[in-house]
C-alpha cells in the first residue's frame, strides 16, 4: 500500500538541481531511511513533502490526493509532520508545553483564550503519555532551552509525533550527539514510531544506524535516486559502497 508518492518532482537552487525529477514512493507502515552525501537533496525532498518549500514542478500525492499546493497547516491536517535537523523548539516554554501545544493545535484548541491550558485534562494526559514514551516525563517542567542536546533531539521528534501524523519526516534525528546517545535516540524513536504504526522517513548519515533500524533504504546522489532496497540489498550494492566510502563514481 502506497501512502505517499511524488511524480517527477523538481526543485532547483540556482544551478543546483536538488531534486531532479524524483518519483518517490513511501509505503504504509515502513521505516524508510534516506541516505546520501551532503547536498544530495535529502533535506530538500523532505522540505518539499512537508511544504517547507514549493516544488518547481511535479506532483505530490497522498493516497492519490494531490497535495502539491497545500499549505503547511493543511499538510499537517492531512497527517504529515516533521522534525528538524537543527533542533527547532519553543525554548522559553517547558518541555510539557512544547508537546502540549502540538496536541492543542492538532485538536483545534489553540483558539481558546478563556480557559487555562493546564485545566484541559485530556491534553494533559496525552502530553504526559507522549513524554513518557520518549523518556522525557521527568523533565516535563524544565524549559526546553535547558535540555541536553540528546533530549532536545528527542523532544523535537516528540513534538512532531504528538500531532498524530500518518507520515513522520525526521531530518537527522541523531545529528550532533555522541555515538552512544545515537543508539538510545534511535531505539526510542523507532519503538515509538513502530508501536504507533506511523510511517517514518528518516534522514541519517550513520550507516550503522541506517542498516540496523530501516525496513528500506533509499540512496540519493546529486538530486537523483541511486539505489533503493532493503538493508541487505543496499549492503550488497557495490556502487553505493563506493559512494559511501567517498570513492569516485566510475563509468
Amino acid at each position, binding site marked *: 500500500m502506497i501512502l505517499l508518492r511524488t511524480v517527477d518532482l523538481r526543485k532547483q537552487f540556482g544551478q543546483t538541481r536538488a531534486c531532479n525529477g524524483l518519483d518517490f514512493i513511501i509505503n504504509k507502515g515502513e521505516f524508510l531511511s534516506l541516505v546520501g552525501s551532503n547536498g544530495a537533496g535529502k533535506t530538500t525532498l523532505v522540505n518539499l513533502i512537508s511544504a517547507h518549500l514549493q516544488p518547481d514542478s511535479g506532483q505530490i500525492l497522498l493516497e492519490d490526493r494531490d497535495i502539491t499546493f497545500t499549505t503547511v*497547516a493543511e499538510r499537517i491536517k492531512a497527517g504529515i509532520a516533521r522534525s528538524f535537523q537543527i533542533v*527547532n*523548539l519553543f525554548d*522559553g516554554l517547558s518541555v510539557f508545553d512544547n508537546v502540549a501545544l502540538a496536541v*492543542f*493545535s492538532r485538536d483545534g484548541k489553540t483558539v481558546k483564550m*478563556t480557559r487555562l*491550558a493546564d485545566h484541559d*485534562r485530556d491534553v494533559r494526559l496525552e502530553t504526559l503519555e507522549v513524554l513518557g514514551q520518549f523518556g522525557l516525563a521527568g523533565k516535563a517542567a524544565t524549559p526546553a532551552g535547558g535540555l541536553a542536546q540528546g533530549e532536545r533531539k528527542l523532544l523535537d521528534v516528540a*513534538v512532531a509525533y504528538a500531532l498524530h501524523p500518518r507520515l513522520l519526516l525526521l531530518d537527522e534525528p541523531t545529528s550532533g550527539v555522541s555515538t552512544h546517545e545515537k543508539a538510545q535516540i534511535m531505539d526510542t524513536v523507532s519503538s515509538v514510531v513502530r508501536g504507533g504504526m506511523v510511517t517514518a522517513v528518516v534522514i541519517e548519515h550513520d550507516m550503522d544506524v541506517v542498516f540496523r533500524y530501516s525496513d528500506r533504504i533509499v540512496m540519493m546522489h546529486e538530486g537523483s535516486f541511486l539505489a533503493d532496497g532493503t538493508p541487505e540489498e543496499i549492503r550488497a550494492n557495490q556502487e553505493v559502497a563506493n559512494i559511501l566510502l567517498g570513492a569516485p563514481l566510475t563509468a
Partner: protein
Amino acid sequence: MTRETRQLPNRSLLKLVAGAAPILLVLILLPSLIGTYQVQLLIYGLIAAIAALGFNLLLGYTGLLSFGHSAYFGIGAYSVAFAVAHLGPHSMEFYLLLGIPIVAVTSALFGYICVRHTRIFFGILTLAISQVVYSLALSFYWVTGGSDGLRVPRPALLLGLLSFSGSHGFQFFIKSYYYYVLGIFVIGVVLMWVIVHSPFGKALQAIRDNEVRARFIGLRIRRFRWISFLVSGTFTGVAGILWVPLNGLTTPDVLYWTFSGEIVFTALLGGFRNFTGPIVGGIVFTYLKTYAVASTEYWQLLLGVVLVTLVLVLPTGIVGAISRARQRLARRSAVT
C-alpha cells in the same frame, strides 16, 4: 501520576491567589491612609499598569515591539471626549461600553496591517500609523479641538448612583474613582492572566520563541499575531478611557509617539519577561515621572539616565531582578 497531574494547575492557581491577595488588600486599604493627591497618583499608576499589561501581551508574549500604542490609548480617550460632546448619558459605564468596541475595531484594523511584518518593520508600521492618528487629531481641530484638546468633566459612576458635584465633589470623586479603576484593573489582570495561560496564550509564546516550528505544529501565525494585537490594543485603549475623566482633558499629546515610548519604557522598567513586570512598571513609572517633573526641569534627562541604567544593569527590569535575587537566595539557603 493522575494525582500529580490533577494537582499541578490547582497549585499554581493557589499560589497566584496567595500572592495577589495581600497586595490587593493593601491596595484596598491604602486610600484611607494617604492623602487625595497620593490616591490620584495611584490611579494614574493603575491606569498605566493596564496600558502596559496590554502592550506587553505583544512584546513579552508575542515578541512584537509596538512603537504606536499611544494610538489606542488616545483613541480610547478621544472616544470618551466625543461621547461627552455629542452623546447622551454622562456615565462612565456608557463610556466604557461605547469606547471598548471603538478601540477594539481600530486595533483590529491597524493590527491587520501591522502584523504583515515583524521586528523593526512591524515597529515602524505601528509608529507610522500612530503618527497618522496624531496628525489627524491635530489638523481636524473643529472635531478634536486641535492642540487645545477636548474637556471631559467628572462622569457619574455605577449607572448614576455616584455623582460628583458640590464643594467636596473632587475628593469624593478621587476616592470613588480609585475603587472603580481598581475594580477594572483587577478584572483586567485576571483576564490577562487567563489569556497568557490559555492554549491561545501558549501558542503566542510558541510563535515568539520559534516561528518556523510554530508553523510546523499547524499554527496560523499571522492570525494569532493579529488577535494578540487586537487584545493588546483594546487593553491599552481601556486605559485611555479610564484616564481621560481623571485628567479632565485629552490633547493630542497622548497620541504622540513619545507617549508610545513611555509605554515601552514602562514595560522595560518592570520587566517584560514577567507577567507582573508591566504592572509594577506602570506604577513605578508614574511616581518616577511625577517626582522627576516636580524636582527638576530636566526631568527628561533624569528619565533618560534611568532608562540607560536600566538597560545596562537590570535588563530584566525590576521584577526580573527581584525574582533572580530570590532564586539566588533560595539556592544559597539550599546549599547551607
